[in-house]
């Protein structure tokens, strides 16, 4: 195991975050705060409690998920796409590092950022709305698992992308709609029965639901299923990454 390499890449990626503090941390915090103001304070004040929780508090887990999903993907995809774009990837390919070490360091760094970001948003939210976290251990577990899974997914996008446009297209056209329709801002029990069934095909529903359960003890689907689904995404992403490195897809000619 090339520990020095893992450490070097991880530190390199974290330094990149520090350099781009504005877009990595501050921007998501600002946009999340805006959601709170609009949905929580302005509109939310006219919405009665949802399942025993004020609407402002109810949307907190969904908002954190929304940020984590998009930020994990954009961080991880950019982290591996940019060296491909500039050509500095040559060094990574010629280094005595295994694919496991490469993935651990890039995905580890992206996931770390996401977890930190999630906690910052949580802290920001706690200043605005009264919050309670019933299952802190599960809350952290969902946070970490989701960050890792979507960082892996972002890593795959970064390797697949051969232009800046492709880097944006999946997050923008697939993940963002799925997140908005995944119960970030509402409980899917508010939907008409037909759409409730449709929603169950949306993977993000399970992530948001499980995460919200860890806060308020209420969930759209059972927490066991949420956890299982998160695990399934994780395994699928891992399998794709393993295939990429075995074949050299988009990395080596």
């Amino acid at each position, binding site marked *: 195991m090339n520990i*020095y*390499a893992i450490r*070097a890449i991880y*530190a390199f990626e974290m330094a990149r975050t520090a350099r781009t503090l504005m877009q990595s941390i501050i921007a998501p915090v600002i946009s999340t705060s805006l959601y709170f103001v609009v949905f929580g304070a302005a509109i939310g004040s006219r919405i009665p409690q949802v399942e025993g929780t004020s609407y402002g508090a109810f949307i907190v887990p969904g908002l954190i998920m929304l940020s984590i999903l998009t930020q994990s993907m954009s961080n991880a995809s950019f982290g591996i796409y940019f060296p491909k774009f500039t*050509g500095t990837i*040559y*060094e990574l*390919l010629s280094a*005595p590092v295994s694919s496991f070490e490469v993935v651990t360091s890039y995905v580890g760094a992206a996931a770390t950022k996401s977890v930190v970001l999630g906690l910052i948003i949580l802290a920001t939210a706690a200043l605005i709305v009264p919050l309670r976290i019933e299952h802190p251990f599960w809350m952290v577990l969902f946070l970490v698992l989701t960050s890792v899974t979507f960082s892996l997914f972002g890593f795959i996008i970064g390797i697949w992308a051969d232009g800046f446009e492709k880097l944006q297209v999946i997050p923008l056209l697939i993940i963002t709609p799925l997140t908005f329709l995944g119960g970030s801002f509402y409980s899917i029990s508010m939907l008409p029965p037909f759409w409730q069934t449709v929603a169950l095909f949306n993977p993000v529903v399970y992530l948001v639901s499980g995460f919200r359960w860890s806060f308020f003890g209420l969930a759209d689907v059972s927490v066991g299923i949420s956890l299982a689904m998160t695990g399934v995404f994780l395994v699928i992403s891992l399998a794709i990454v393993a295939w990429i490195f075995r074949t050299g897809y988009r990395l080596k*000619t």
Partner: protein
Amino acid sequence: MPSIISVTNLSKTYASGFQALKNINLDIREGEIFALLGPNGAGKTTLIGIVCGIVNASTGNIKVDGHDIVTDYRASRSLIGLVPQELTTDAFETVWATASFSRGLFGKRADPAHIEKLLKDLSLWDKRDNMIRTLSGGMKRRVMIAKALSHEPRILFLDEPTAGVDVELRRDMWRLVRSLRESGVTIILTTHYIDEAEEMADRIGVISKGELILVEDKAELMRKLGRKQLTLQLQEKLESIPSALSAYKLELSDNGNELIHTYDAREDRIGIAALLKDLDEAGIRFKDLHTTQSSLEDIFVTLVRDGK
């Protein structure tokens, strides 16, 4: 001398169907400077790419110090430093950070003293805290060398190290390569500046259209394929070459003030001794003489043109 890199039956066909390398067999000896010459698109960079792990081979295998580059990539790659042709650097990193990063990436414990020495040797010490994007092209080239040497490799690949660099940097680079060789590092450089290979290399390989058409000791190559010229500066102008000397390949130039004798370097030297004697007998006196040898460039051009 034992070989440190051993390439066997290596071929590479890209997905486009382009065959970049055709059945290459090559042994690089430990501690030598090997120059790989060839026109653009001959396959030099592909060959280096495969040894370093950037490009997958289609067939054949490569061993680096006995380690297979595919099954034992960790051992083989940690011996190699690579300076690619393109100036690809992390624009927003500092010189110090990028060199330290490379060392870690290649599995070596941090060693600030080594990085410091390296940056000083490469005249980068003053720039250590500068972002790479603020450096000139020549400085960036030095940074790439520092990265390649950061993990103390035993083999250094220099892909077109002096393409587009100024004379001073070129001389620095040559000095560096020589001092590395003295410390036991094996150096493989590609170039299309032939004078560079002539100046630096112990052995020369010529690659053209994916085929290694020749591998030879430089001195041997020059001796075998080189032509020599003896130029005599005459004391008195000659109108024409005396018939007594018609057996020699002689030319008059500089308005009859110079007599030029062209001969094959492999011929025995008796030819010159005889010529000088015959000149003396013909009453032709000269005030100075010098010999010139055809350059590697001439040899190379002939080789690639004829495809051997």
